[in-house]
């Protein structure tokens, strides 16, 4: 089980695709080792759909919902983060096969 702290990886402001890229690559790398991931957003002050699209939504290119349910846990999400992430996941599932 790998714990990835977003604050340490890309800082407190995660509002663009730029911050999402390293997070995506780190999760993808852990998955390729068959590790599960706890993604910790503690200390993150700002997120956006762009960040979640890049960091989480891209995972749907290679992994399905069942795999992600088993292997990815996201902790310390604020209600605002959850609201935005939920929209990003809706879109990711909808466009899964186009990615």
């Amino acid at each position: 089980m790998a714990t990835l702290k977003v604050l340490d990886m890309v800082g407190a402001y995660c509002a663009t695709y730029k911050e999402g890229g390293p997070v995506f690559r780190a999760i993808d790398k852990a998955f390729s080792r068959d590790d599960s991931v706890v993604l910790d957003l503690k200390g993150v002050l700002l997120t956006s759909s762009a960040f979640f699209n890049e960091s989480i939504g891209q995972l749907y290119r290679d992994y399905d919902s069942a795999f992600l349910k088993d292997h990815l846990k996201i902790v310390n999400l604020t209600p605002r983060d959850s609201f935005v992430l939920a929209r990003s996941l809706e879109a990711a599932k909808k466009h899964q096969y186009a990615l």
Partner: protein
Amino acid sequence: METTIVFLPNASSDVENYKSLIAAYCGIREHQKTVAFDCAQMSFIQPFGLNILAGLIYSLLKRGLSVRWIAPENKEVLEYLYDQRFFEEFKVQGKYLRSAPRTTSVGLKRLEGLDYGYIKDIAAWLANNSKLPGQVIRDTVDINLVEVINNVKDHSKSPIGCYICAQAYHKKDQLILSIVDLGVGFLQTLKPFYKELKSDVDAIHQAALHGLSSKSQVEKRLRGVGLSVIRRFSKKRGTLEIISSTGYWKQDKQGRITKRELTWTFPGTAVNLCLDISALRRLELNEGEVVF
């Protein structure tokens, strides 16, 4: 040779009020050199009107034209412009306007991309002005402004970036956020990738409901969720209005959508949010169950 752009008395949120002045703006050519902005008769102005005023002035100054300023005679309007930092954005020198150096103040602001300091400042300023809890305002600003600013930066090709203006109206129980750019609009951005799009309003509708994005097609990555985030947030909390070129799209508080074609062309995109302060206070952000 001087062209005059006359602001009508009512610079409210109704886009039709700007038809004639935008037609005058679109007709301006470089050889005209000087443009007069005649605001003398303006007796009412809201954030959308201020964004249009600022956007057009900045655009003309950027093109190298001189802009002559004819101030509003109405004292309340003049005070509003001061309160919204219009005269920090534009300096009046004699009869002419100059682009002012950037300030750290909030109120009217031009942005070309995300400015975290500004996002923080405008949230604090609105919390103070709206008397809403700080967390509610931070959520409102972070969710809506961040998504629109990202959209402008990523898609609009706006030569001015965007202007943002916000205001709380206590008597009307409203918080208004307005963002205006002078970019290419939704249809021009999306049409090369979605041949089925027929009109500007169709392009707005598809982007707002289904998250169409040109970049998702080019980069084969997940893009274009921002507008649907704003649409979901504003449902139950207020109205969302999007104007882009000839397209007019609106979602009311109950989620009902109205759309129509304008008979004229807005030279960019406007996103106007009119949120109920009481709804913001009452409703928790509970539409966010994360399901993989």
